[in-house]
């Protein structure tokens, strides 16, 4: 029955212009950066450099595309997540979900998975785009895998925060703006605290934990951080909705 909520969420994303616009825009941006990346690779690598300075095409183009992806998602996720609960709150359609034989956990998980599935489509496209270079050259699939996993965890974390903020208000636009600000703050936390990279505040920065993935390094600590982040915000959302039910 969770699957039903996921399906419904996906369906409403695809039946609103927002879903298609975001999807098209993201593909356009990533496609452009991919092409520019490939183009630059050949310019940079043609002759001027000595062989030992060369880096693989996967890392070169990947940096380009995955670098921009994490940044663009910062805008895209709040746009998509803002509606999740606040819109239903405004339209009072949460009653349908709450009077169905579903626990609040299932409702929240369903909505979260719906959004993450939608965003996964984008990520799969990116992965396919970069892997397509395999047609004419050797591609470092390990690098791609690590980046895709990192991006996916990052986007899922964004979504978890987005759904929580969306559960706090009945104004989707307000939810969108707050989510954006919060995500932005979390991303650049370590920029402000550059002097002291060991501080706990810097440790909270999402970017800090995404960065190793983008270099192709898989560390369970970073992995655990993202999972913890997601669980925390989903739990907060569940508790928030439960409190609503108790009060009225």
């Amino acid at each position, binding site marked *: *029955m969770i699957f*039903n*909520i996921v*399906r*419904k969420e996906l*369906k*409403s994303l695809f*039946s*609103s212009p927002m879903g298609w616009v975001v999807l098209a825009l993201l593909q356009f941006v990533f496609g452009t950066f991919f092409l520019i990346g490939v183009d630059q690779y050949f310019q940079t690598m043609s002759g001027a450099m000595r062989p030992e300075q060369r880096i693989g095409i996967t890392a070169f183009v990947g940096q380009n595309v995955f670098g921009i992806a994490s940044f663009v998602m910062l805008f895209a996720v709040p746009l998509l997540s803002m509606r999740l609960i606040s819109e239903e709150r405004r*339209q*009072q*359609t949460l*009653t*349908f*979900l*709450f*009077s*169905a*034989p*579903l*626990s609040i956990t299932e409702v929240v998980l369903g909505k979260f998975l719906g959004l993450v599935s939608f965003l996964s489509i984008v990520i799969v496209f990116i992965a396919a785009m970069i892997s397509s270079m395999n047609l004419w050259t050797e591609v470092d699939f390990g690098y791609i895998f690590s980046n895709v996993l990192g991006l996916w965890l990052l986007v899922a974390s964004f979504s978890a925060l987005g759904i929580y903020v969306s559960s706090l208000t009945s104004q989707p636009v307000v939810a969108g703006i707050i989510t954006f600000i919060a995500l932005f703050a979390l991303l650049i936390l370590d920029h402000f605290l550059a002097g002291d990279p060991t501080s706990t505040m810097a440790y909270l920065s999402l970017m800090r934990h995404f960065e190793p993935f983008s270099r192709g390094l898989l560390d369970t600590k970073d992995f655990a951080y993202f999972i913890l982040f997601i669980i925390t915000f989903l739990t907060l959302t569940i508790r928030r909705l439960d409190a609503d*039910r*108790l*009060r*009225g």
Partner: protein
Amino acid sequence: MIPAIKIEQVQKHYGALQALRGIDLTIEQGEFFALLGPNGAGKSTLINLLAGLIKPTSGRLAVMGFDVQADYRQARHALGVVPQELVFDPFFNVREMLRFQAGYFGRGPENDDWVDEIIECLGLADKAHTNMRRLSGGMKRRALIAQALAHRPPVIVLDEPTAGVDVELRQMLWEFIKRLNREGHTVILTTHYLEEAETLCSRVAMMKQGQIIALDTTANLLKKIPGKNLRLKLSAALPESLRPLLRHEEAFEYMLALTDVTQVEPVLSQIRQASIAVEDMQLIEADLEDVFVDLVSKP
């Protein structure tokens, strides 16, 4: 037999406001039950508690023997609620919405025949593929009724289903609901049209300020109050001696409550003696509305 609805000592407070102050109510399976009461009496609050949309401050509620909190899955499977407000999901058409709703209850494609049947019975057939946004108010109401029925619940609760619905649908709707009731569904409704409750429902609960002030069969409630109403339009004020019988007045129009037809004659003779002319007169059978006004206006 397990009662369809069992409510024990339920209280609900909103901050300082006591919306429900200790409700006890048992509704048997197969009943056609009416919940009446003035605005703010707590009818919708009670229904929302049954649906699990809010939690009671104290007390227990069960649907078909399943506690609405402990066994919420079974309880909600057994219950279909038509909400009072017109709420809808703007992205879907009627049929999609019904299928999704049934899906929440774990019903898959095998339920589609039933979905098509309720669409047909509620006169929504030509609107089945229209987006919810583009339906008129009355049609949205029908769609909401369909939505509550989508998973074939044995207990159906309708919170003012006929508000904003035209005469034709109202009849169609009642025919449909009566049929469901005959087929064994328990039906609970709230309405402000008392004649509806009177003709349809076998048992009535009247609520006021969060309490049940009357709970009986419709027939017994009607027996409780004086049998007839005498409406008089007089040329001057009503004689003082007749004031105790007065139920309602407006300019020189008076409504008197009589226990029996034989009282008509003495009343008229007193008016004659006071040399007041009777301009118009009507004898009306007392109905549920009188019971209602009687009970609700009591301090």
